C-alpha cells in the first residue's frame, strides 16, 4: 500500500484490471511507448504489449467507433481521448452508437466501453486544453458520466467503469492529477457508479461539486467552519445517472444549497441539480439555490483562467449569501 496521486491511481487500476481480465484493451493517441501525454498509461505497454495498449492514428471518431466494434465483440476497450477539447469529433459515435447499441438491438449487442478524457482548467495549458463540457455527455441517455476527484475514487470508479456492461464517459480532473496523494489498497475493489460521496458532514449548507472543484469546495468549507458555518460537502462523482436522492436528502437537512462547477453556467450540470431542488426538493429550500461556476464565455487562455474558475472566495461568498437569506 503506497501513497498515490490520482494519476498513479488510474495507472494502478489499469494494471490491476488488465492482469485479471484479458479482454481489457487500451487504445488512443500516444498511450503506448509514451504512456499517454499525462503518463496515465505509463509502463502498461511494457507489461501488456502493443496488442493491448494500442497507439492509434490521430482520428478520434474512428478511435471511439472502433471501440464500439470491439466492445460488441466482448472486448472491454478503454479509449483515451487526449483532452476533452478533442472529444467532439467522437460525439457522433458516442451519442448515436455507443449510447444506443443495447437499446437498438434489444440487448443483443452491447457496448462495455470506457471513454477517458482529462478535463478542466487551471494547469496553464494552451488553447482548447482546459474546457469542461460534462453536461453535453450527461444529456445523452445511455451513457454514464463519471468524474473522480481523489486518488481512491479514481481507482475505485475506474475499475467500476471498466467492469460496467455499458458505456462510461470517464472524465479526469487534470488539475488534481498530481495534487495530493492518498493511500490506496490495490485490492481491485470497485466503487458504486450510482452514488454521490459525502465528503464532509454539515448542517448549515449543502455544497455540491465534482472534479477539481472539490478541492476549493473543501477549502471553502474549512474556512467557513472557522466562521461558524457548518457546510456539508458532496462529491457528485457519478454525474449521470445522477444520485439526486443523496443531494435531496442533504438539502432536506440543511435547507440551503450551493453548487460549484468549472463548466459554463448556463445549461450545465448544476442546472439539473438545481432543477430537481426546484421540483422534488422545493419544500426543503430555505434559500435560493446558488451556482458558482465558470461563465458563459470561452474559457480564457491561461493567463486569465483563474478569473474564470470558481475559486474559494466566490464559493465562500456564495455560501454566506445563502446563509444570510431568510
Amino acid at each position, binding site marked *: 500500500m503506497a501513497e498515490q496521486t490520482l494519476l498513479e491511481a488510474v495507472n494502478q487500476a489499469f494494471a490491476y484490471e488488465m492482469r485479471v481480465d484479458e479482454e481489457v*484493451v487500451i487504445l488512443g493517441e500516444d498511450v503506448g511507448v509514451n504512456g499517454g501525454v499525462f503518463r496515465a498509461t505509463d509502463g502498461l505497454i511494457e507489461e501488456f504489449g502493443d*496488442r493491448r495498449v*494500442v497507439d*492509434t*492514428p490521430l*482520428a478520434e*471518431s*474512428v478511435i*471511439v*467507433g*472502433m*471501440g*464500439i*466494434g*470491439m*466492445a*460488441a*465483440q*466482448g*472486448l472491454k*476497450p478503454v479509449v483515451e481521448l487526449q483532452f476533452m477539447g478533442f472529444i467532439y*469529433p467522437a460525439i*457522433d*459515435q458516442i451519442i*448515436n*452508437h455507443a449510447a444506443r447499441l*443495447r*437499446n*437498438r*438491438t*434489444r*440487448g*443483443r*449487442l*452491447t457496448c462495455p466501453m470506457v471513454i477517458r478524457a482529462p478535463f478542466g482548467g487551471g494547469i496553464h495549458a494552451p488553447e482548447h486544453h482546459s474546457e469542461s463540457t460534462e453536461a453535453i455527455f450527461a444529456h445523452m*441517455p*445511455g451513457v*454514464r458520466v463519471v468524474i473522480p476527484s481523489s486518488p481512491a475514487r479514481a481507482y475505485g470508479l475506474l475499475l467500476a467503469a471498466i467492469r*460496467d*456492461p*455499458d458505456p462510461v464517459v470517464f472524465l479526469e480532473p487534470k488539475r488534481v492529477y498530481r495534487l495530493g496523494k492518498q493511500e490506496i489498497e490495490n485490492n481491485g475493489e470497485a466503487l458504486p457508479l*450510482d452514488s454521490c460521496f459525502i465528503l464532509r458532514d454539515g448542517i448549515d449548507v449543502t455544497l455540491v461539486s465534482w472534479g477539481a472543484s472539490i478541492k476549493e469546495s473543501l477549502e471553502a468549507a474549512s474556512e467557513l467552519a472557522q466562521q461558524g458555518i457548518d457546510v456539508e460537502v458532496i462529491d457528485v462523482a457519478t454525474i449521470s*445517472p*445522477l*444520485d*439526486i*436522492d443523496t443531494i435531496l436528502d442533504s438539502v432536506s437537512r440543511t435547507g440551503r444549497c450551493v453548487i460549484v462547477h468549472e463548466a459554463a453556467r448556463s445549461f450545465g450540470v448544476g442546472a439539473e441539480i438545481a432543477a430537481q431542488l426546484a421540483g422534488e426538493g422545493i419544500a426543503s429550500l430555505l434559500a435560493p439555490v446558488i451556482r458558482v461556476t465558470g461563465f458563459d464565455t470561452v474559457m480564457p487562455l491561461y493567463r486569465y483562467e483563474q478569473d474564470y474558475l470558481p475559486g474559494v472566495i466566490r464559493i465562500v461568498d456564495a455560501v454566506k449569501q445563502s446563509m444570510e437569506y431568510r
Partner: protein
Amino acid sequence: MQVPEFTIETVETLDSEGRLLRPLPGALREREQLIDLYQIMVLTRVFDREAINLQRTGAMGTYPSCEGQEAIGAGIGVAMRKDDVFVPYYRDVATQIQRGVLMEEILLYWGGDERGQKYRDQSQDFPVCIPIATQSCHAVGIAYAIKYRAEGRAVVTTCGDGATSKGDFYESINVAGAMSLPVVFVVNNNRWAISVPLAKQTASQTIAHKALAVGITGIRVDGNDPIAVFEVLDEALERARHDNQPTLIEALTYRLGDHTTADDASRYHDQREYDEARTIEPLIRFKRLLQNEYQWSDADDKALYDDSGKRVQQAIEVYQATSDQAPGDFFDYMFAKPTTDLVRQKKAWLDGLKHHG
C-alpha cells in the same frame, strides 16, 4: 513529380447480355449454386417491392429500396462464412437474409419497432446503420477483436458512394490499413446520394482509387454481376482471414428506385441514364445466363417468383401479427441494470397510462 493518372479495370464475369466473359470461379461451377444466387436476388426483389407496397398502404414507415443492388448483396452473402461478421448499411436486404436476419424482422424495423434488430437467428452482425459511414468504424473495431483473438474470421461492411465523402469512411479504411485488419469495405456505388450525383461527391477517378490514400488493396467490380462480386469478395475475405489484409471494393451499380419511399427521384434523375441502367440491371442479365447456359425456363422463373412471393407474404403475415411491445418497453434497454431514475420514470409513465387508460 505529379501523381500519374491511371485506370483501374473493372472486374466482370458477365457481359450485359448475360454471356460469360471467362470461366466461372470454382465455388460457382454447379447449376444449383448459380440458381441459389439468382434465387436470393429474386427473393430480395420481391421483398423490396412488397416492402414499398406496405409503406404506400400505410402498413410500414419510410423504406429504402435496394432495387438494382441485389447482385452486390447476393455476392457478399454467398462469399461470407457464418462466423464472419457483417456490418451493413440500409440497402443490404439480400445479404442480411442470407445471414439469418428474418424478413419479418426487417419489416418490423422499418415498421418502427426496435425488436426488428434483435435478430433471433443472427447474434453477431450489426443492425442497419443510418448515420452515414459511422458503421465503417465499428467494422474496424470488430476486425481488431478478431485479430486480437487470432480467430481467422473476417468482417464485411457496406456503404454507399456518398458515404465515401465522410471522414468516418476515410478514418476507417486508414486505420484498417495502418493496423492491418481483417475487414472488407464494399462501396455500393449506385451513382447517387439522394439527389447528389457522384460527380458532385468527389473528383476521384474511381472510388477504388481511394484505397491508394491508405495503402490498401482497391478493387472495382461490376456490381450488377453477382458472380464477379462473389469472386472479389471471396479473394478479399481470404486475404483478410489469413493475412489480416483489408480491401476496399467499389461495386458499380445504379439506384433503380427512389432514395427512399419519402423521396421523389423524378425531381433530379437523368431519365436517359436511368433507362440505360435499367437495361443492365442484375436480375435480367442473370436470368439470361441461366436461360442460355443452364436450361432455365420461363416456367422455372415463374415458379421461383411465386415461391419468393409466398415466402414474402408469410413474412408480412408474421410482421402484421406481431403483438405490440409491452407498454414502456423502451425504458428497459438503456442499461444492463435499470437505474433508479429510469425505474421512476417508467413507473410514472405506467401510472399515467393506468390513470388515463
